[in-house]
């Protein structure tokens, strides 16, 4: 039997950034296909195209053998494509029953037929074996239950294709088992499922086929039976480790930062490590492993619930954080470059409590030159800069403080190759000058090229420590995704 859904040669770019550059995918009836790929491989873009939210620039979609387009989410629904979104897109204010029928209310004489809504919703929930009723308020449900609501929504729309976008990322083991039970039930009923996950054990437990994306391109697909874990890992990361800026060799000095048994409820626990002068310490892990949360606590933006952070310096350690989300956390977009760089340095710039714009501008100009920020001048607003140059501004504002420890959370995410090399160079020089750097990244080549030592986090815990020599892509990926 031909596949139920076939995607061939899909391309999609966003403002010059290529998200998909030739993706093929087949989903078969009564089959669960696992979709694998590193962050940024193009999985989310694919989900959005199948949801009718984005349109591909090129390529073809065949549903049940017929060439088709999915111009709007309504078309996706009418076609029979249901999506369980990773971020749990439900209506908290409404009941479960109404959530299932939003924008598709059964009507009688033009009015919503609530009896039918209630009855059909309850029937679908019973069929799924849900442990909550149709009249429940969605806001009172757990994340796992909200996923079930999304699945139920797909079912009332008679979906034949169901996409599960990393549904297990925030579920407990028992909740995962429940979700898998429902997924198998739908598979046996003839649905074609696409299961996106980072966890290998789940892939082998649930899926029977696989597809791997890398950098927006399909690099492998087929039946899972004969394919082993190592083969999948090789497909996921199998690119040459490009290194545009060679890391300087350093001899680590005295201990700068000592973290012991650090924990924060629900986010991470029992984290211990040290950081030495001149060292770049990489922290690798998949999205949701607790790395950014750890960074927030180290920086002091969140409070630790357990453990301690100590250092060699009297009166604590001066730690700076370049956060993952540079647009909302790293900078104040409407402010000028000068004002952004000045923010963490006001004490130096205004020793008597009076800020002089001349010294503010001079400081900004210094960093514009030092980091080669492409801008008209210190007065230009940060929001009008390119992503790479915005990131350089965020770096500059913290480098100007000369912190003992600099934490970089996904510092090169979404920026172009040139800016990336510049960030790597700054990082390396800063460490070389006797400071400590913690580099958090989901990008294996970056972690491996830049780090003197790599810690791997998974589900809130440290799962391994690797020296520069031991840190191979497959070793890190294995530590990050194994149970």
């Amino acid at each position, binding site marked *: 039997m031909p596949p139920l859904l076939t995607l061939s040669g899909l391309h999609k770019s966003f403002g010059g950034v290529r998200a998909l550059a030739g993706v093929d995918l087949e989903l078969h009836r009564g089959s669960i296909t696992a979709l694998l790929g590193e962050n940024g491989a193009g999985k989310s873009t694919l989900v959005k195209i199948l*949801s009718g939210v984005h349109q591909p620039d090129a390529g073809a979609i065949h549903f049940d053998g017929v060439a088709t387009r999915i111009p709007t989410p309504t078309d996706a629904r009418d076609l029979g494509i249901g999506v369980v979104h990773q971020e749990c897109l439900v*209506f*908290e204010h409404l009941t479960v029953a109404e959530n299932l029928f939003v*924008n598709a209310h059964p009507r009688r004489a033009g009015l919503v037929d609530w009896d039918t809504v209630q009855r059909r919703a309850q029937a679908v929930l019973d069929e799924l074996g849900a442990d909550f009723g149709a009249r*429940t*308020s969605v806001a*009172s449900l757990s994340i796992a239950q909200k996923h079930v609501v999304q699945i139920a929504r797909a079912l009332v729309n008679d979906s034949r294709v169901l996409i599960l976008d990393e549904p297990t990322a925030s579920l407990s083991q028992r909740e995962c088992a429940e979700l898998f039970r429902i997924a198998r039930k739908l598979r046996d009923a003839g649905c074609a499922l696409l299961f996106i996950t980072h966890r290998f054990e789940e892939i082998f437990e649930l899926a029977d086929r696989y597809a791997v994306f890398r950098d927006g391109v399909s690099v492998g697909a087929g039946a899972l039976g004969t394919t082993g874990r190592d083969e999948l890992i090789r497909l996921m990361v199998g690119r040459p480790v490009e290194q545009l800026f060679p890391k300087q060799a350093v001899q680590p000095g005295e201990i700068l930062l000592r973290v012991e048994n650090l924990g924060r409820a629900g986010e991470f626990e029992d984290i211990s490590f040290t950081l030495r002068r001149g060292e770049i310490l990489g922290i690798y892990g998949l999205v949701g492993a607790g790395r950014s949360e750890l960074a927030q606590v180290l920086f002091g933006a969140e409070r630790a619930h357990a453990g301690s952070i100590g250092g060699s310096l009297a009166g604590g350690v001066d730690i700076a954080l370049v956060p993952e989300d540079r647009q909302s956390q790293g900078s104040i977009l409407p402010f000028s470059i000068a004002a952004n760089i000045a923010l963490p340095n006001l004490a130096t710039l205004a020793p008597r409590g009076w800020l002089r714009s001349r010294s503010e501008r001079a400081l900004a100009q210094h960093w514009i030159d030092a980091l080669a920020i492409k801008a008209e001048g210190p007065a230009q607003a940060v929001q009008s800069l390119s992503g790479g140059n915005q990131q350089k501004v965020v770096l500059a504002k913290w480098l100007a403080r000369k912190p003992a420890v600099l934490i970089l959370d996904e510092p090169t995410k979404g920026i172009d190759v040139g800016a990336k090399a510049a960030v790597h160079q700054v990082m390396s020089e800063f460490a070389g000058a006797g400071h400590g750097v913690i580099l958090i990244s989901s990008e294996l080549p970056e972690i491996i090229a830049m780090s003197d030592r790599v810690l791997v986090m998974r589900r809130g815990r440290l799962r391994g420590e690797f020296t520069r020599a031991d840190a191979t892509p497959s070793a890190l990926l294995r530590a990050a995704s194994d149970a």
Partner: protein
Amino acid sequence: MKFAYRNRSQVARRDLQFAVLTVVLLAAVVLKYPAFAAPDNLAGVLDDTAILVMLALGQMLVILVRGVDLSVAANLALCGMLAALFNREFPDAGVLPVLLLTIVAGGLLGAFNGILVWKLRLPPIVVTLGTLSIYRGVIYLLSRGSWVNENEMSPDFLAFTRAHFLGLSTLAWLALACAAVFIVALRRLPTARNLYAAGGNPEAAAYSGIDAGRMQFLAYVVCGAIAGLAGYLWVARFAVAYTDIALGFELQVIAACLIGGVAITGGTGSALGVLLGCLFLGIIRSSLPLVGISAFWQMFINGVVILAAVLLSARPQDRLRATLEAPR
């Protein structure tokens, strides 16, 4: 997440609690001033509150979809002036053309707000702050700053709002009819349900094929049409039209919505709650003079009631979002 939800049954519970509170307030006033309970007086209170009820129901739609309409009172005043001028030109045309004129004109003014919010994605508060001034300015241009007085209005133009059936004025009946229509429509009209969905979670609404911007547009059109109709009612009731009628009234309208349990963050609210909120304000407003409290205290009490209502009914994370604290 313990307090984090307000589903339909919870909204119903809040409406019930608020109804009890309104009755308690009424009972307290009546206990002290039995004359307040006279049918004529209660009918008068309803008559006084009727326009507020209608405007608040329209405003509620806009707030449900995360908007706000500051221009309702200006819209009312402009359409009121249109009605008065039309009546002066065609005194024998009757009331029906006036009703149609004001509803259509008000709807168009609302549509102008809606287009700016929907297509240009401008913030609702800015758009309607702008149109508030523009609409008032247009009244001045239309009337050249002059008043239209009672002696220039035809008898049936004036009589419409004052006619009584079964002890209640036309105004009161209109307000009750509006409330009844809203209660049923918001519960059972598919488009109205999409309004709740779009206001509650615009992103999820988009994935369900609902255009949240279009929902905002519709809300503004309905709100505007009601404001337009209210313009005629206001002018006929007070028998005068000039640039500054209902000046600042939009704030009372928004206050009534908030007191009635409409969340300023969108997605939650009921027509019954809004009706009760208006009646609550109306009872306070008409009983204060009896108690001998000055108008200044009336504003003060309104303010306290708003803050108390919002404090009691807002969900904790709404409060968080309304302040400058970073989302977590």
